[in-house]
């Protein structure tokens, strides 16, 4: 049960205010109210909630109640995946949806029915990895999701075919190859699973709107090699306080794939003052900030190897006494963490084989189907 509902701006001003029950003392802080802050117009909230009780959150139901037109809000989160869209300016393949297409509100105006024949199917994986300083893998964790965003009329049936070697659990065996194994799968309640056992086909009649069709998790054994390996070497001269870090980053993706927006973040000991750098490519950038080194690599091709040599002065770094250069890292250095996006790549190897629609629009062209695969880093940490 909800008594009141606020959306506050970053300054603490209430942006949306709704007093459902009138029992919690009224609006004493509410000064600002941005009715059309979000893509949802303001008049739907009494339908979602009545007297503080959730009535329904189904898009299908709500659509009937919304009379005003939706206003697209600008994406306000950098990590909002739908707004990452097509991963920067990469347009190698011709069949690419405009990046704004997926962030269009599903509740588009009622008049332009003709443009709505589109379906977006995204396979998105979040990867968390922990690599020990000797290079051994301590933890791999993949959280995957198949998200569907449908602009088709509700109730039109579709079938999603997944990779046939898709196995659930440790014991199941399918196909002749190594298979694609996940630990746990959960489906949306509207998914029909008659053909899942035999052919790995999901059947569903999605309502117009967004829907997470399937969630899965996978830990510890990954079928493909990890996307990145880091080979650090550290030289530290205690006497002069000179710290030299040589980082070699190898991308183990297949040669045709690439990683985008790669950023390496390396915490440094306190008191680092200057940085001199030698980078292997012109488009790379490295800088110091907030007690850490940041190395930006806009694009890394699969199979390539990049390196950076960083020299820093760390005056007065406390440590056990000793003279001369040493290879042991000073305390406070590392662990390095990487963030990146891998378009058209899933770490688990899961692919959507096909997306078939039973729906035939009257007179219009076939609906557009967009199937996208994407992996991105949740936490990719390498100890030094």
């Amino acid at each position, binding site marked *: 049960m909800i008594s009141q509902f606020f959306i506050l701006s970053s300054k603490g001003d209430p942006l949306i205010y709704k007093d459902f029950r009138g029992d919690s003392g009224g609006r004493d802080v509410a000064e600002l109210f941005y009715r059309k802050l979000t893509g949802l117009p303001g008049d739907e909230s009494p339908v979602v909630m009545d007297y503080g009780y959730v009535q329904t959150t189904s898009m299908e139901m709500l659509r009937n109640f919304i009379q005003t037109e939706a206003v697209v809000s600008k994406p306000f989160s950098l990590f909002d995946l739908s707004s990452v869209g097509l991963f920067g300016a990469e347009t190698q393949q011709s069949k690419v949806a405009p990046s704004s297409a997926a962030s269009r509100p599903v509740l588009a105006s009622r008049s332009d029915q003709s443009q709505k024949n589109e379906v977006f199917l995204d396979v998105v994986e979040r990867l968390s990895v922990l690599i020990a300083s000797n290079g051994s893998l301590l933890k791999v964790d993949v959280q995957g999701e198949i998200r569907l965003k449908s602009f088709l009329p509700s109730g039109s049936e579709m079938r999603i075919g997944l990779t046939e070697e898709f196995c659930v659990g440790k014991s199941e065996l399918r196909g002749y190859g190594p298979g694609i194994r996940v630990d746990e799968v959960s489906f949306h309640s509207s998914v029909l699973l008659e053909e899942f056992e035999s052919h790995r086909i999901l059947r569903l009649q999605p309502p117009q709107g967004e829907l997470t069709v399937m969630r899965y*998790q996978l830990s510890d054994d990954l079928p493909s090699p990890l996307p990145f390996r880091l080979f650090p070497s550290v030289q530290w001269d205690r006497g002069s306080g000179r710290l030299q870090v040589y980082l070699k980053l190898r991308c183990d993706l297949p040669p045709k794939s690439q990683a985008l927006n790669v950023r390496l973040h390396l915490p440094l000991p306190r008191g680092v003052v200057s940085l001199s750098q030698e980078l292997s490519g012109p488009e790379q950038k490295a800088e110091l900030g907030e007690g850490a080194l940041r190395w930006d690599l806009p694009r890394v091709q699969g199979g390539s190897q990049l390196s950076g040599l960083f020299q820093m002065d760390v005056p007065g770094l406390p440590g056990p006494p000793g003279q001369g250069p040493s290879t042991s890292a000073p305390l406070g250095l590392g662990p390095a963490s990487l963030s990146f996006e891998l378009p058209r790549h899933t770490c688990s190897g899961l692919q959507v084989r096909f997306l078939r629609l039973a729906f035939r629009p009257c007179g219009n062209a076939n609906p557009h189907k967009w199937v996208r695969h994407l992996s991105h880093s949740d936490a990719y940490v390498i100890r030094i």
Partner: protein
Amino acid sequence: MPYLGSEDVVKELKKALCNPHIQADRLRYRNVIQRVIRHMTQGLDMSGVFMEMVKASATVDIVQKKLVYLYMCTYAPLKPDLALLAINTLCKDCSDPNPMVRGLALRSMCSLRMPGVQEYIQQPILNGLRDKASYVRRVAVLGCAKMHNLHGDSEVDGALVNELYSLLRDQDPIVVVNCLRSLEEILKQEGGVVINKPIAHHLLNRMPKLDQWGQAEVLNFLLRYQPRSEEELFDILNLLDGFLKSSSPGVVMGATKLFLILAKKFPHVQTDVLVQVKGPLLAACSSESRELCFAALCHVRQILHSLPGHFSSHYKKFFCSYSEPHYIKLQKVEVLCELVNDENVQQVLEELRGYCTDVSADFAQAAIFAIGGIARTYTDRCVQILTELLGLRQEHITTVVVQTFRDLVWLCPQCTEAVCQALPGCEENIQDSEGKQALIWLLGVHGERIPNAPYVLEDFVENVKSETFPAVKMELLTALLRLFLSRPAECQDMLGRLLHYCIEEEKDMAVRDRGLFYYRLLLAGIDEVKRILCSPKSDPSLGLLEDQAERPVNSWASDFNTLVPVYGKARWATISKYQGAERRGPELPNTASFATSGPLIPEESKETGQELPDSGALTLVPNCQLTAEYFEKTWFSLKVAHQQVFPWRGAVHPDTLQMALQVVNMQTIAMSRAGAHPWKAYLSAQDDTGCLFLTELLLEPENSEMQISVKQNEPRTETLNSFISVLETVLGTIGNIKS
């Protein structure tokens, strides 16, 4: 933001609303109304145009209607007389052919929140309950609750309640759930909606049709139903099995709670359920939603209290990533600390060590404390890690490490040697009060093993004038006196200086008094000082063992899937007490619970530092005088409501026990002499509702357990549980004093 000049705005809008040209143009009219609403939501007082807005409600345009009704619901409490004018339109709309309009009008009418509206809304609500359209029925059902709320605390309308109960059989799932919500509010005074067998079975069968919100709520309501037979119970559990695998975490948690509560007599079923729910819980712990992740982590901790090994093989899931917010990292560190076992301790400690050098000082300190917690079991490895951390010479790290050492030396005396070797040198990196106190304490207690202890303390004595924290000075006094006993030659001079300073120059009275006290103690002779300062300390291992005792699942099952695990039991009790008092209003007497009923623990037991658990609504009446005859008669006429054994060591001191029981208002009817075998005692107590608790304590000579049997003249489990916890606390306290 046009905060100022709102009068002009109102005037202008009023003019526009009255303009017949605008009224004729539907779009322009709607635009003006939208401007009114926008100003309203921005905090401007728009009540001036109420009349004009009421007029605007008579329209066929549904958007305009919606906007006007929104306006009316906001300002109706300010202008009740004018709002009555709108009732007519609303009533008319309640019989509109369009169900959307009917529902909208009914909902707005019920939300008006002004006195006198009840008589107008009653009939439309009754009509709405029988409406063809499910949307209107949904609104009408909740309208019943709103109407009841408007009436204040008047009596419940029996016919309406019956109608709502019958609507539980409605076709529409949302109507069903709304009925439950509405009944719950209307019958709040009587303990909420009653779930009997037919209703429970009906709801169970409807479960698959509900959406996830409804499912989660219905699962909560089903907690009230107690199956009659074991067979029925397992039928229900079978029916609900699928919901443990639901894709909505809320439903999974609701189903888990129901399983845990229903199967409270079947521990193996409970364990099975907790195994099944492991996957979904772990998934929620790594969810993208931080809030979900946090709540899941809190529940993981709750489960770990009962099943310490439950998540040990998944320890990697609880490693922190650098991008996570602080509160999640702290929870994860706590979880890691609790699931350590022989197999994963190496990896967990390595991971925690990485956190100790985190940029955030708070997180680093939490990680160090966590290593300190693990050190109670894996002492050597942890002490080694902590010693290495001292080498970093970072202030915020050193101070926490030294504090951890202090606790560790106390709990695990075997590590004293290692700690003493690590200490020299760290005084340079400690600036804060807590750290200094810990260091000075260690130097005082174990100074004979640390060669330079007197010189470190001497530095503190030299700088005592500039020391800002009185607590540090007090600690310094005690430590120096202790060290003086073991190394008199090195300390005599500076002890004299310190005492002189504290007595003659110190301004803080507590420090001065302590100084005077030690001075006079020294006058009494060195043997006397030794007797007082070095007398045997209590055995710390007892308290430690109590902490680690596994709690049965049933002790927290009722808190599962509530806010209790998120806030913690004690904090939640405070919050809900405060809220409850606020709701009830100040004129109601606060039902004095044990927490507020004054000193409860006998004076001598306070130093054990044990707090009484909050005993909820139980209040024992102080002067419950029962004759032995009456007690005997009642005792034999009742059945044993609760029986348990309580660990006990040694003999009983009847006087102490009797006194302690009196403090908590338990009367002793009869008691064996000290040393009798078997030893027995009969106690009686009565709470403020007249419920009697009769208790027998039985101590057999051969086994070291106290058997407690409690009888109760009214079967109320909640108060019984509170009573037993009070009794246990008293017995525990007495037991501690003697040992």
